[in-house]
Each structure stands twice: as C-alpha cells, then as structure tokens.
C-alpha cells in the first residue's frame, strides 16, 4: 500500500494515497487470440490515470474485465483491497466502480432523471413488497433518489428543462452529461470513462478535461480514462499506460511516455 511513499531522507514523508485498484497479470484469451496479455495496473486513489493505445490494442477489453462484463482468463483484480476478479458487474458497481461507454448507452425510453435513478439502484433497498405496500421509508427513499438525480444532473450541467425529457431526445452532448451523472449516482470511488471525448470538438474536449479535474477534487474520485485524444490525455492524466497488441508497452509520467520510442513507433510506425 505504501509503494509510492516518498522516502527521500530529510524531508518528512508525504503520505501517499493508497491504491484503489490493482490489476495483476490480467490476460484474456478469445480462442486463439490473446486480446489482453499479462497486463498489470495500479491506480492510486484520487489520481487520474489513462490507458491509451492504437485501435484494437485491447483497451476496451481490459475495461470490460475491470467492470466484470467479461471474465479474465487469468489474473487478479482488487478494488479497495477486495478481490473482484470474478464478481458480477452489479456487485462491482456496488463496491464502488462505475463506468461510461464509448458509444453512449443510455436507456433511450427513460427520462434523464430516470436514467440517473437507475444509477441509484444499488444504493436503494426497496424490493417487490416495498414497491407494492409503499411504506413511508420507501416513499422517502424514492424522493431522495429523485432529488439526488436532479442534483447530479444540475452538477454535470444539464439544462433543467431537459431533466424530464427522454434520453433519446437529448442532443449528443447532453447525453454524455447524463451518462456521467448516471455513473456518479452509484456513489463510485473509481470512475471509468471510455473515450469520453469521442465526437467532441477541441473546445469541448478541453472543457471535459477541466470537468474531470473538478470531479476528482469535488467528489474525491479516482478516474481511469481510455482516450484517443492525446491532448486530453497528456493534459489531464498523472500516469499513462500504453497498450499495444494486448501488451503493456510503456507506463509512467505522460511526458516520459510521449517521448518513449516504442510508443512513437506503435502510433506512427518505425522510422526508416
């Protein structure tokens, strides 16, 4: 837990953030294809970490293993010190990991508020009997979830008049906002964003980078990012991991990774 502890003699040790997520030797094999090969990743709490790589490098597969949508062939994942390697996606969400999707996956026929209330599901308790009898505590729970949903939608900047519009009727940018609000509604400690700037112009991307920092500072979040936009990655992340052909190619400070010849080769091809 104290791997990053500053131990320079003379200066008092800066208390390092504990690791919120550790992934050790994650491998995923689809038949003969090894999509992700022995990838390890440590994420300290309250950091912003990026995973980058060319198309088909295994980034999204890696993400899907972290969130439990697919099970790794081998390896071990812990979240807040608890093993989640073979846990179901909803259990992983309950333990504090939330995500957005590369191509937005909102519930189109539900309103923005209802979408975010789905995110509250894991923090609510009412079952079938509670739904039918609807005792005071269930009413209070529903009201609290609705209020929290509206609060989060306001926080991500959705115009108030769009709160009760169906998600499929919202413009693209607002759909991205609702998706982030829905993920935040699960009270995550680790937020995974899968290419959040896809389809955004440079100004919007820059604003999103600022928003990610604000999220981390306001909500004590840790953010793991898959991103293609190098400007965003280099601007916002504290650490970068590069995947290529399912393998970890480089890892570390953005400036160092950017200068790494192997990374340049993977992205631009070998020189002469």
């Amino acid at each position, binding site marked *: 837990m104290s791997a990053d502890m500053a131990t320079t003699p003379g200066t008092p040790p800066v208390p390092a953030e504990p690791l919120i997520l550790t992934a050790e030797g994650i491998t995923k094999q689809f038949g003969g294809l090894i999509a992700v090969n022995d990838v390890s990743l440590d994420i300290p709490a309250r950091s912003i970490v990026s995973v980058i790589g060319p198309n088909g490098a295994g980034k999204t597969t890696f993400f899907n293993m972290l969130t439990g949508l697919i099970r790794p062939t081998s390896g071990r994942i812990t979240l807040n010190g608890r093993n989640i390697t073979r846990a179901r*996606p909803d259990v992983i969400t309950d333990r504090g990991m939330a995500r957005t*999707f590369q191509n937005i996956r909102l519930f189109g026929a*539900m309103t923005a508020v209802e979408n975010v209330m789905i995110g509250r*599901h894991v923090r609510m308790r009412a079952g079938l009997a509670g739904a039918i009898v609807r005792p005071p505590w*269930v009413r209070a729970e529903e009201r609290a979830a609705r209020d929290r949903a509206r609060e989060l939608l306001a926080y991500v900047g959705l115009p108030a008049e769009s709160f009760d519009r169906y998600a499929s009727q919202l413009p693209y*940018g607002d759909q991205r*906002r609702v998706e982030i609000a829905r993920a935040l509604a*699960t009270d995550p400690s680790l937020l995974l964003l899968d290419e959040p700037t896809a*389809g955004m112009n440079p100004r919007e991307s820059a604003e999103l980078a600022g928003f990610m920092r604000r999220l981390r500072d306001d909500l004590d979040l840790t953010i793991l990012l898959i991103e293609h936009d190098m400007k965003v990655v280099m601007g916002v992340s504290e650490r970068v991991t590069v995947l290529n052909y399912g393998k970890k190619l480089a890892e570390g400070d953005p400036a160092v990774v950017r200068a790494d010849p192997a990374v340049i080769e993977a992205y631009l091809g070998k020189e002469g």
Partner: protein
Amino acid sequence: MSALPATPLAKLRALTGRLPAWWSRVLAAALIVVGVAVPFLFGSNGGFMNATIIAIAYAVMSLGLNIVVGIAGLLDLGYVAFYALGAYSVGWFGSEFFAKAQVHVLVNSVVSTLPGVHLNFLLILVAAALICALAGVVIGLPTLRLRGDYIAIVTLAFGEIIYVIAVNGQSVSIGGGMTLTAGNLGISAVDSPYFPGIAQFGLLDLKPWYWLILVILLVAVFVNLRARDSRLGRAWIALREDEVAAVSMGIPLVRTKLLAYAMGAGFGGISGAFLGTYTTQVNASQFQFGFSIFILAMVIIGGLGSIWGAVTGGLLLGYINNWLIPDVLNNLPSSFGLNFQLTQVEFGIFGFLLVITMVLRPQGLIPERRRRLELTSVIPAEDAQLGSEPEGAT
C-alpha cells in the same frame, strides 16, 4: 414531447393533465362504482355476464403477461403453462380428485364430508400464485443467457411440456391409484369458492363470481401500477432498454429478470385458478399453444408495456371471444347463405385483428408512453451532426 404528433389520446392526456391531482382518484372511484354495479345494469345472468366474468379473468392474465413481455421485454410464448398450473391448483386442492386424501381447510359443511383435498379458495389462490411463481422461475432460469427470439423458443417449449404433462398425467401414478391429472377427461366437480357471510357461489347467480374476479382485477391493477412505478419497475425497463448498460449500472440481472417471470406467472396462476373453479372443471385440452398466442394478442392489441392497455386488450378479446362471436354474430355467415359458423373461424378473426392493429396502430390501443416514443420519435436535429453542440460536457 413536443415532437410527438397530437393524437386524440395525446390531446386527452394534455386535457387531463390540467385537472387537479385528485381527479384521477375520483375517476378511479367512479369506475369502481360502475364496475360493481354492472350486474344490476345488464342482468346478473346470461351470456353477457358470463362473457364479462371470463373477459375480466383474461384481463388479469393479460396483466401478468404484460409484466414479462411488455415491461421487462422478455418474449414469452408459453404463458398458457401458468393458466394450466393455476387451474390444476384448483383441481388438486379443491376437488375429490385426490380421493385417498382427507384434507379440509375452511370449507363449507357439504364439501367437508367429501373425500379429497379441499382448501378454501383463498388458500388455493395463494397456492396457485406460489406454484406459478416457482414455475416462472424454473422457466426463467434457462432463458437468462438468451435474448429475444431464443427466449420465445424456450418458453414455447415450456408451454408445450406443461400441456403434454397435463394430457398424459392420467397415466402418471402418484400412488394409491391416484394420477397426476385427468388428461382430456378433465377433473370435474371442482369446489366453488366459500366465503361465508359474504356471498353464496352457485351456478344460478353469477353476481358473486363477477365481484370476486373484479376484486382480483383491481388488486392486480394496483399491484402492477405500484410495481411499475418503483425501483423494481425502473430496473425492468432498464433491462429491456439495454441489458449491458443496466448490469453495469448495478442492476442484478438474475434476480430482476426472475422476479418479472415469477410475478407475471403468479397472475396467470391466480386467473387460471379462478377460471378453473368458475368453469367447474380442469381439462387438459384447455391448455393448448393457441391460448398463449391469444393472451399475447391481448397484450399487443392493448399496447405492449401499458397496464391499462393490457386490461383493455384482455377485456376486448375476452368479449369478442366469448360474447360477440358466439352469441351475437355466430349466425352471420348463414344469413349470407354461407355454410359455416363464426366460431369455427375465430382464430382467423383474431389473426385478422392482430394484423389490422399492427398496420393501423402498432403501438396498441392504449400505448405506453415510452413505447409511443420508440415508434414515433423524431430524431433530434442535433444528433445528425455529432459534436456541433455549443457547449461541452462540463
């Protein structure tokens, strides 16, 4: 919502939306009063009353199937299985069928001298609901990993399995010379409900039957409305909309889907138990595949996912099947000199109605607001040009 075309129903909604909040309660109370008074308005016996009772029972089944197909989006083609199990609950626990047994719980003095298992009808209803809920879970389990058409095939097979068991159950010995079912001979002389001091159930007066099934329908509607507008109902709709996103947001897939199957099946069982005791017999030939499609047609014609639509569809097809075709229009072909009766082509008529609905009103008679959106929504102009928004996601 402004993008939606102003249908008469939408106009009605806009109109009712301006009325005070207590308005819907007053309307509901008025409907219940009218519903209770129906036997006094249309005569307490005869074909129309009989059709009304059966139509309401169908509406209860339609509500149950609507949970599975309409709200949770799991196409179930074997719903007749729950009708069968509900009806057999009456056959098993409310007749002389298990003649070696002597079990009597809260039944009238005549029945308590008869052999067999005789439970009070309320207990049978509970048993039917529980047996069907369990069966719903059993059919739900193998379909959990399947989607769409594949679920339909598995449930269809399940319906057929129950039917075949019902038909051949008379060869399945369960000891003491007793068999599992009476096959196509039918279990007959089923007990009537016994509610001392409230009503006398007999064949001469249909009023108590009517009120009983009306109460069951009202309870079913209430439970459906409450379940839909709850944490659970939201989870069902989310699973229907996007399963991957739903589980990623923390919806437990197995529990949520199985609850939909169990609850939907429970209503089928309750309605089946009522129909079993009302028709005083439980015959395997009632439980054929066509009936699953019949119930599904009610849900679709009423409006997939819509609770009031399911009730409307159930009542409508119930009346057409049990009153309009046999009582009113049956001799229509012969008056044109044609040599057949309308009851002989009733499935053709239902097929025709289904096709007409799909062409003219694919969202159903009383569409769920969400489904209406799917079928009529206009894609916002902003979607056409990604990222042309004035602001980013800040």
